[in-house]
């Protein structure tokens, strides 16, 4: 897994690529998010368009990040869910929890609504 960070209009975008699974450092996203929160960056957009594989622990990881950010008064949203990831979120009723976008501009705009 690789995570690249960039900032657009005050929102931190994490471009995640590779596998989000056990053994592939699924804790990396969590650590990254914790670092961001500590430095006061509370609006976070996870771009998952280049994620090649995710398993239940990867989904759990996303949920963990969501709860931590929410607990600290921030917002965590998802961008470019792959078809498979959308399916995994849908059948565990998590699509209702996560705010997800197909278009970066719309996603960014939603943070200041």
């Amino acid at each position, binding site marked *: 897994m690789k995570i690249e960070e960039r900032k657009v209009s005050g929102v931190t975008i994490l471009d995640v690529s590779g596998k989000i699974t056990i053994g592939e450092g699924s804790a990396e996203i969590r650590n990254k998010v914790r670092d961001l929160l500590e430095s006061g960056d509370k609006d976070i957009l996870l771009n998952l368009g280049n994620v090649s594989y995710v398993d*239940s622990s990867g989904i*759990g*990881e996303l949920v963990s990040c969501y*709860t931590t950010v929410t607990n600290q008064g921030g917002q965590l949203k998802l961008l470019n869910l792959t078809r498979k990831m959308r*399916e*995994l979120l*849908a*059948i565990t009723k998590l699509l209702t929890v996560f705010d997800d976008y197909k278009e970066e501009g719309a996603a960014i705009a939603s943070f200041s609504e």
Partner: protein
Amino acid sequence: MIFPILGRFAISKTTVTQAQIDLSFSSAVCYLDLVQDVSDNITKLIGFDEDARYWIGMSIRESVINAIQHGNDEDESKTVGVCLTASSDRLIVLVRDEGEGFDEEDLPDPTDSENLLKPSGRGIFYVRSFMDDVSFARRPEGGLEVRMEKRLNSDKEKQ
């Protein structure tokens, strides 16, 4: 001395007739990719489409992770067994560990509102969603055996 071209074996790529693969390995996640590669290969041979192959591979992976973590407590001296039986119309997978097993009744439903935001507890739910039959049995010799079956012409469509 010059030899003529011999008519060598005419071999066609046939589809799967019958294959069985038994893997057993110490309880470490380094074997996950091996198991998944085997799954991808065999499901391709049986003729599952790309989506089905993905979900079957994930289901096996989830079960093996459970066997390593919950069944064998990540104790590398304990063994995980994976047995894949392929025939022309289905795949049967057994995943065995050396643990105590668990009570299916006690499994919380990850889609219940009080579980929705828990960071774990979705593995078996996914396995049940993607495979046609899933059962858990304590083996007479000890340890848990998960049995999963996926039929080629499954009425269970992609979720």
